[in-house]
């Protein structure tokens, strides 16, 4: 046999071996329940993807060590099969197919970001595989009539509505002038729709409505307009890059607005990177460690914060918290269904009504969590160290909103 043939054969054997390695992990072998997840471990979402995975893992460990999932008098352990979707929606869809068709996964966890969740949802839906997702907030996920999709987080359009209400309240109930700049992606545009609704509801006027490009690195033109027309509220949403660019240029150009509301302040570590320049910025968040929700696995939000920190060495952003909550929802649904049948589990998921450290969870017909409000925090500094303090809704506020934001000349 020639050298070439031997090489060829060994290569084929190798490929076959890999192929075999990937198949044949049954969805509920003996005493484990396997959940599938495509998470971004490389590419542009890799940081957020890591938070997502860490959140899942911490919850899996916690649930398993506290007796696992009890179905039909038997105790099962959770196990998650991960693939790296490379932050690419095409890849995410392929991996979802692979998890379902090759690996035989019957229950799914969501990926990171609205875009990737949108890519996966049609596939889980077609295969009637229930998916509990924790990181896709786009409103369009909940308008397609999906029956197997459940989201533990609040939808994107709810992110900054509260800020407009707050501005109107501070303005003595009178309508306000709104300036806004949103990136052109699914998530930010949904946040924009929420603001449009809020403006209509309160009779407020939108005087600047800019769309920021994906390659955004400069918004000085928008800010020059803001300076000229003096709105009551400036709303910015463009992921981490948008938040960092906005704060940098607002402080450089000394733009005075009574209220600045943004998203992605904690994932961009705004208060750490920009320090005092970021002070008084209002930020929307799904969760905050000072909230008073609790459950029996993680106890309160603040103990989750501590446990996560001990395990992974950094404070959990809300992406990690909501991901952990997704596992609690799964456990609860399995036990109420008292079955491993995916249809029965789906029906149990639809009836979920529980409290977790992350917040209350109850799904509407579209699978959207309607029991948990968004929180707004404000960056506050003492000396040089800055912290995020919850200021709305008032029920959970740990500190008072500073309004209007002091002028740059007075800081």
């Amino acid at each position: 046999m020639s050298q070439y043939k031997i090489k060829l054969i060994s290569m084929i054997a190798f490929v076959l071996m890999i192929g075999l390695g990937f198949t044949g992990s049954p969805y509920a072998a003996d005493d484990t329940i396997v959940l599938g997840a495509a998470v971004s471990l490389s590419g542009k979402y890799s940081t957020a993807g890591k938070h997502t995975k860490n959140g899942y893992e911490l919850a899996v460990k916690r649930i398993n060590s506290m007796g696992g999932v009890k179905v039909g008098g038997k105790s099962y352990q959770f196990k998650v099969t991960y693939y790296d979707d490379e932050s690419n929606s095409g890849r995410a869809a392929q991996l979802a197919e692979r998890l379902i068709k090759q690996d035989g996964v019957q229950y799914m966890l969501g990926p990171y970001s609205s875009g990737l969740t949108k890519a996966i949802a049609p596939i889980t839906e077609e295969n009637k595989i229930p998916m509990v997702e924790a990181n896709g907030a786009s409103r369009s996920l909940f308008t397609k009539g999906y029956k197997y999709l459940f989201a533990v987080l609040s939808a994107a359009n709810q992110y900054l509505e509260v800020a407009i209400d707050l501005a109107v309240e501070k303005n003595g109930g009178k309508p306000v002038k709104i300036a806004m700049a949103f990136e052109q992606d699914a998530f930010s545009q949904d946040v924009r729709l929420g603001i449009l609704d809020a403006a209509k509801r309160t009779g407020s006027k939108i005087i600047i409505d800019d769309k920021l490009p994906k390659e955004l690195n400069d918004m000085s033109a928008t800010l020059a307009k803001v300076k000229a027309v003096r709105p009551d509220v400036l709303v910015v949403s463009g992921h981490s890059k948008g938040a960092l660019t906005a704060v940098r240029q607002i402080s450089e150009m000394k733009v005075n607005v009574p209220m600045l509301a943004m998203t992605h302040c904690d994932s961009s570590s705004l208060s750490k990177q920009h320090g005092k320049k970021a002070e008084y910025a209002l930020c929307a968040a799904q969760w905050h460690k000072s909230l008073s929700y609790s459950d029996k696995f993680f106890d309160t939000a603040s103990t989750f914060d501590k446990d996560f920190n001990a395990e992974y060495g950094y404070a959990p952003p809300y992406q990690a918290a909501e991901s952990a909550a997704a596992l609690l929802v799964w456990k609860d649904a399995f036990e109420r269904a008292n079955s491993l049948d995916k249809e029965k589990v789906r029906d149990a998921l639809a009836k979920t009504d529980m409290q977790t450290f992350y917040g209350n969870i109850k799904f509407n017909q579209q699978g959207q969590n309607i029991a948990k409000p968004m929180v707004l925090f404000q960056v506050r500094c003492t000396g040089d160290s800055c912290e995020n303090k919850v200021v709305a809704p008032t029920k959970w506020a740990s500190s008072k909103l500073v309004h209007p934001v002091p002028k740059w000349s007075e800081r």
Partner: protein
Amino acid sequence: MVQASIDGVLLGILFALIAYGMALQWGVMSIINIAQGELVILGGYVAYYMYTAGIHPIFGVIVSPIVMYFLGLLLYKTIINKVINRDLFFSILATFGISILAQQLMNILFGSDVVVAQSNLGTTFLFDDSVSLPNAKILSAAVGTLVAIVLVIYMKKSKLGRAIRATAQNARAAKILGVDTDKVYSSIFGINAALCGIAGALISITFTLHPYVGLPYTVRSFMIVIVAGLGNLPAVALSGMGLGVFEEFADYIFGTEFRIGAVFLLLVFVLVYRRFKLSRKREYLK
């Protein structure tokens, strides 16, 4: 209006810096470097890491080009010298590969978080506060201008500068006359990387850094070089500033969403116009 024009000029000088490196490579080596933007971002990260180590990021303007120069040499020795005498297509493919590789490596090494370096340089206000100029931007423009002037003189006076110009005119003739063209090429690649390093350091204090934001810089420098022509530094500087002003105005008048679109539209117009001019020239020849 005044604000937009001044912002545009300041931005344009930064672009021109990046574009000049591209024009050099293109003109002398016939290489279109798709990885230009990634080199810029890499240079920015050098400044950012100096900042996190407690050094003022402004010194990145000095350190970053040195680091990047050697990185440029390394890239030339390992990859570029293999494609230099081949078709233009090979070099585009090769630099495209470098660009993807650089993005992913930066993502692994530095993480996908968006970062900024704080210069705390303050802001200058003109005309009764109606125009605000961040000092960081003014500084970038000043450094950019200074580097451009130094380069023009260097190209005119120094031995290497003369060798570069000779190689650009006719590489074979230059080689016959004793110019070490390989050395010329490698130093051009190094100089280009150093220029990107300076630009990157300036970007780290004026804008934001992220492993995947290199492409817009590549596109803009490509655009500037096409408008200005190869190897003509004053034209590159002018065309850079022109593009900067054009962008700011497009942003101010049509809205931010049309900013990049306007750049591409301009690119199309310029290409069509050039073709038109070229076809008229051809008619004369007939």
